[in-house]
């Protein structure tokens, strides 16, 4: 009996949790279906509108459109060229039939296939991240990808294995152990060979020091080998690991701050003629490393050189500030891309101000700049050339004046979302959401859940509050005659208010009972309570029949 009573206190909340959780997911799925359907139809409309509007552009608008979509490249002497690629090769993404090269005065200098281009522009350190325009190396393996391959699937999770080969045969396999941050090597005859860590290759587990928290790596084969070499970046260090020669080289270590991004230029040995190839006679191998304290570290070879550079303070006030670096045999260059528009205020400190900034950004034209600097060996900058063009506000994006900046359909659909999402957002605070929505966690269930909650929260909308009030009213009318106790009754009203539609459905699922007319006071009463809530009369007993022997004795 005692177990029954104790269990009731656990089982009842568990039942409410399970029901509301499933109904919240059901409401989310419903909202998702509506939004996806709307997005698909809006995309079709936008595509047809864009096709029409491109045909209707004036000569000047076409020119501006071309400038906006052109790649701005620099010759080593600082001359700027605009490269426009008008037409894709059908079915081959990222490849174009021809390209047109213009000078800054909009004179067409050359037109033809890219492979026959008569100019050789500066190439920049490609960032190992795959997120911005400097990315040439789309072969990097990030922490996010490591997490993705660790996701448990019906065929289990994956791991990183590096082969050591001789001829056509794989002789050794070096497997990465994410928990210990070391590699363990196995010979193909079955025995363990050793370990690789930050201190190098050892034959004993105890002597191996971990590399540190993994961030990104990329792999290539040297000129004379088919065994991959890795450039391995951890939280604060960069290693080059050659498994064939059993050599771990520490390339860079940041003492003061974590490494944010790294980029490579002419560091690896690609085949001449491929996209990644850089002429070693013209370029010096370079690793560009940006640390969290906003310092740029350049590690160069031939000859060995290291340079640390902090961007000027006033550069940080503008948005789109991207810096690219390259080192030729003669000079070190810096490429700066930025937009003449002030950086936004912190979203979590002042949401209103941030939204105002967003609306301004959407509605106002902006000037975009690209600048080339020459760097001296102390990090001093000399401006060689610059170019600017105007970005008009996108015509297809409407300027939203409401407090909630999302598109209209999303705003309306989110009105049936629980206000609970808004409370959770405020309650958990910035730190939690920054952690939960860390880009590296993409693909994880909780990331997707957090993203959906943020995306579909009601923003304290008036319609949402009115709907909540209506649902509370409905629950009140439904529950009044069925109530068994006041605390329970009030709890359910609050619950419906907090969870909106999902709350109302949960309430109905767990509390709906048939009602009868009380034979004493004539009011409606639920069957879940023995006593009438108004006159305290008990439920009527069934009338005794003539054959009811048990009750009559």
């Amino acid at each position, binding site marked *: 009996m005692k177990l*029954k009573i104790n*269990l*009731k206190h*656990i*089982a*009842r909340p*568990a*039942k409410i*949790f*399970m*029901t509301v*959780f*499933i109904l919240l*997911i059901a409401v989310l799925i419903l909202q998702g279906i509506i939004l996806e359907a709307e997005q698909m139809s809006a995309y079709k409309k936008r595509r047809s509108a864009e096709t029409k509007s491109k045909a209707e552009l004036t000569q000047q608008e076409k020119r501006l459109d071309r400038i906006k979509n052109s790649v701005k490249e620099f010759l080593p002497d600082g001359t700027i060229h605009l490269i426009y690629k008008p037409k894709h090769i059908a079915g081959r993404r990222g490849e174009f039939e021809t390209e047109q090269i213009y000078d800054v005065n909009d004179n067409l200098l050359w037109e033809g296939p890219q492979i026959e281009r008569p100019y050789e522009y500066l190439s920049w350190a490609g960032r190992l991240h795959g997120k911005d325009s400097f990315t040439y190396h789309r*072969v*990097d*393996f990030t922490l996010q*990808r490591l*997490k*993705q391959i*660790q*996701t*448990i699937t*019906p*065929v*289990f*999770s*994956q*791991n*990183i*294995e*590096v*082969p050591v*080969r001789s001829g*056509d045969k*794989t002789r050794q*396999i070096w*497997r990465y*152990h994410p928990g210990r941050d070391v590699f363990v090597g*196995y*010979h*193909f*005859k*079955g025995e363990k060979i050793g370990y690789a860590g930050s201190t190098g290759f050892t034959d004993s587990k105890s002597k191996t020091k971990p590399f540190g928290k993994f961030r990104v790596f*990329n*792999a*290539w*084969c*040297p*000129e*004379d*080998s*088919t065994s*991959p070499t890795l450039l391995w970046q951890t939280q604060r260090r960069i290693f080059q690991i050659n498994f064939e020669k059993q050599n771990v080289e520490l390339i860079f270590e940041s003492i003061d701050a974590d490494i944010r991004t790294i980029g490579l230029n002419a560091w690896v040995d*690609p*085949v001449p003629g491929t996209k990644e190839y850089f002429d070693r006679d013209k370029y010096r191998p370079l690793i560009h490393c940006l640390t969290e304290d906003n310092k740029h570290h350049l590690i160069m070879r031939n000859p060995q050189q290291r340079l640390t550079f902090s961007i000027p303070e006033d550069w940080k006030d503008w948005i789109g500030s991207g810096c690219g670096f390259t080192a030729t045999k003669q000079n070190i260059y810096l490429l700066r891309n930025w937009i003449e528009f002030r950086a936004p205020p912190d979203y979590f400190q002042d949401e209103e101000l941030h939204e105002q900034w967003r609306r301004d950004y959407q509605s106002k034209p902006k000037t975009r700049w690209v600048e080339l600097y020459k760097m001296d060996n102390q990090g001093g900058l000399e401006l060689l050339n610059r170019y600017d063009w105007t970005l008009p506000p996108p015509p297809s994006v409407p300027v939203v004046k409401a407090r909630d900046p999302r598109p209209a359909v999303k705003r309306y659909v989110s009105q049936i979302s629980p206000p609970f999402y808004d409370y959770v957002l405020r309650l958990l605070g910035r730190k939690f959401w920054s952690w939960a929505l860390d880009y590296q966690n993409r693909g*994880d*269930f909780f990331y997707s859940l957090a993203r959906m909650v943020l995306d579909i929260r009601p923003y304290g909308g008036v319609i949402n509050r009115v709907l909540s009030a209506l649902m509370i009213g409905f629950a009140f009318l439904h529950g009044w005659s069925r109530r068994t106790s006041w605390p329970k009754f009030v709890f359910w009203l609050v619950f419906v208010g907090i969870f909106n539609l999902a709350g109302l459905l949960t309430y109905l*699922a*767990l509390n709906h009972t048939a009602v009868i007319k009380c034979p004493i006071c004539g009011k409606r009463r639920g069957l879940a309570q023995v006593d009438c809530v108004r006159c305290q009369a008990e439920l009527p007993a069934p009338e005794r029949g003539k054959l009811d022997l048990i009750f009559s004795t």
Partner: protein
Amino acid sequence: MRFSTLLRKELRECLPWLLLAAIVFLAVGGFVLHLEPYDENYNYRYSRISPCDILSCYDLTYYPILQVTGPWLLLSSIGLGLVLGVRHFWIPHFTRTWPFLLHRSANRQTILAAKLTAASIAFIISLGTLWFGFYWYACRPEVFAVPQTLRVFIEGWIFIMLGFVVYLGTALSALSTANWYTTKIFGLLLATVIIVTTLSQWTLAGIFTAIAVGVAVLLSQIFDTFLRREF
């Protein structure tokens, strides 16, 4: 004594399904594992690598050799959970045998505990031991040069636990007195949500938390419903 008698009775009922799951997993899993030319795969996989190549980020990732058995383990586990849940909690409804089982000298807790223990033993015997056997086989250096990681072994056990979650979800749905179009199937829906949650996470801590929360929510309701409801 009463518990062990009940446990034997429940195990007798589990036996055909337990054997079926074990045979399916052993036969199909063993067959595909035996066919896997893993060492040759290693040479083939890297045969396209040549000097000066820049490797794509997924060229160096690998699935364990036991991957061929993974879907079979998961399906057998979920299937066993579903069948045992129906056998233990739904069939007595259809055959109207609940009163015969409940009107014994054993109390309801003992009866429910016997059913849950029988199901747990069924999972451990039929799938757990086989999984252990497969893992041991795949770790032998004379069979496959590179041994399996411990994580793969744990992931196999996670699949088995998911089967138990499905068993609990089925049990709750069977015991619920609600209509099928209201909350009756919510037990099974919660089990489905837990499977989806588990199969889209990369941390073992997150996976175990999801399973633990799911098991706690389902078990508490199963006990409460079973002890209270009339059959």
